């Protein structure tokens, strides 16, 4: 076989595999969307390939359900994820700038320390964390889900790499000569330069926080403070067989859709951002 037709065959095979994998990725979401538009009675009868007419009915029964306060959950999740993302990127940028632009005794130690804990799982400190926030009176509140994101080593590392590549120290010098105070230099000169990096990390932090289940499930007890993943877990734990299936699909859909919408709008930046935070080399 000539190498040209061999290459051609390879290309065809590659496309078949890619289409198959894309099918796998999309198929389950397709069924989810279709099933969320069918009523319980219809779903009992079998599977449908096309959307039904019960979308609004299912949506209303989710919205008016006191047992699983989904709308309240989405609001809580939005508050937690939004605040986490905001303080995470601001303080990570601040820390990165502090370690990048200034020279001080503990600089090297501080940097090495952050790099050492870069991928440390939060689960190993979960027990002490729970006891601590109980003592601080923050048990069963949203605050302990937000404040700790000030210290995010991975986001810091991303910001630091970005500063290295795009902030000349002479710019900082120039600002100083013009009489800008240090905080003003950071807020008015450095932050605008870091906008692209902050945007990418804001998305990732938001998504990470939105999807986070382990710690919130341990911290939150009362229903009106639950975030979306806890409600999904609650749904799984409930007496499953007697439930309205249309409603279950609608709840899963509501948990997933906000992220998919954000992703479809910003996919270009997100995919470019995946690799930027990776290793150099």
């Amino acid at each position, binding site marked *: 076989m000539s190498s040209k037709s061999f290459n051609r065959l390879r290309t065809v095979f590659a496309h078949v595999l890619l289409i198959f994998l894309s099918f796998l990725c999309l198929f389950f979401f397709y069924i989810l969307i279709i099933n969320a538009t069918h009523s319980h009675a219809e779903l009992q009868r079998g599977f449908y390939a096309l959307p039904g007419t019960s979308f609004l009915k299912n949506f209303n029964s989710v919205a008016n359900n006191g047992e699983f306060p989904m709308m309240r959950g989405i609001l809580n999740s939005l508050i937690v994820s939004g605040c986490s993302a905001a303080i995470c990127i601001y303080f990570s940028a601040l820390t990165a700038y502090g370690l990048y632009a200034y020279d001080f005794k503990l600089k090297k130690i501080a940097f090495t320390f952050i790099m050492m804990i870069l991928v440390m799982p939060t689960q190993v400190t979960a027990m002490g964390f729970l006891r601590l926030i109980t003592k601080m009176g923050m048990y069963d509140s949203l605050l302990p889900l937000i404040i700790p994101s000030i210290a995010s080593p991975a986001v810091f590392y991303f910001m630091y790499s970005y500063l290295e590549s795009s902030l000349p120290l002479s710019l900082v010098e120039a600002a100083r000569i013009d009489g800008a105070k240090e905080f003003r230099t950071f807020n008015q000169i450095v932050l605008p330069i870091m906008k692209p990096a902050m945007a990418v990390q804001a998305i990732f932090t938001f998504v990470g926080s939105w999807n986070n289940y382990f710690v919130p499930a341990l911290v939150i007890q009362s229903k009106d403070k639950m975030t979306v993943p806890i409600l999904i877990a609650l749904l799984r734990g409930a007496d499953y067989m007697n439930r309205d299936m249309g409603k279950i699909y609608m709840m899963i859909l509501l948990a997933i859709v906000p992220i998919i919408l954000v992703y479809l709008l910003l996919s270009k930046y997100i995919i470019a951002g995946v690799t930027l935070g990776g*290793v150099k080399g």
Partner: protein
Amino acid sequence: MQNKRKLVNYAKWGYIFILPFFASFFIFSLIPLVDTIRYSFYEYYRSGIKEIGPNFIGMANYASLIQSDMLKYAGNTLILWLIGFIPQIVIALTLASWFVDVRMRIRCQQFFKVVIYLPNLIMASAFAMLFFTLFSKTGPVNSILMSLGVISEVIDFMRTAFGVRTLAGSMNFLMWFGNTTIMLMAAIMGISPDIFEASEIDGCNSTQRFFRITLPLIRPILAYTLITSIIGGLQMFDVPQILTNGQGNPDRTSMTLIMFLNSHLRSKNYGMAGALSVYLFIVSGILCFIVYKITNDNDPDGSKAAAKAKKKRGG
């Protein structure tokens, strides 16, 4: 000299700027870590409404964990991770080398990248709930397979260890292969095109090129992917927890280490939870150190070290 004195003047600001990070880390990670380690040496649990302890008992928690099912759960975690990781790395390497190969002329690259990365952003717990519903006895997967005539009676995926493990592993595969593909793609694109060109002139075919050039040159990133994936696997929780409702059914064959930790935390079994956390901390500490070595290595492919050794031998 002038410059140096100036930098010293500003040192105070460096400390001020990094203070929030370290204060937050100190309060919300370091104090909890010390507390966790401390209570791992105590008998401290709740039985009914009565709190027992804390009484110092040395290493007893560690010993009883070893004798309990912890190692079995570690094995489960490893199996679940492997089911997801092996196809993930194979597919990701293949796709990445195809995407960057100009002769393959992959169409709609951006579309494929967007689609395969999508599952990575989906809420793992909702994804698990979705799979649980779709693969239940009365779910659509069974009804599709039935109507296509593939199976004659419904499969209860949740009843067998094989079924649950495969489902959890496949979900991990689906959620992570896109991410890995994009990481490896960036790594391959970082290789100098000169090397590929030279190999082509020397008559290298695509298989040789992949195994002799691409693979060795992206070794540092492969190692990074492997270790971070092990750390991710160690933390596996959301998917099996939701899929089995925290039970690790059937017969706790899909119970992971973090699910075990979670159940101790929920029953306020602080001593055991502490000891288990310390075990996890030691393992992830070692893995973190390896990642640190990889990210801060200025000689990633070992070529400098090899050259040095050669020089020493006088070659």
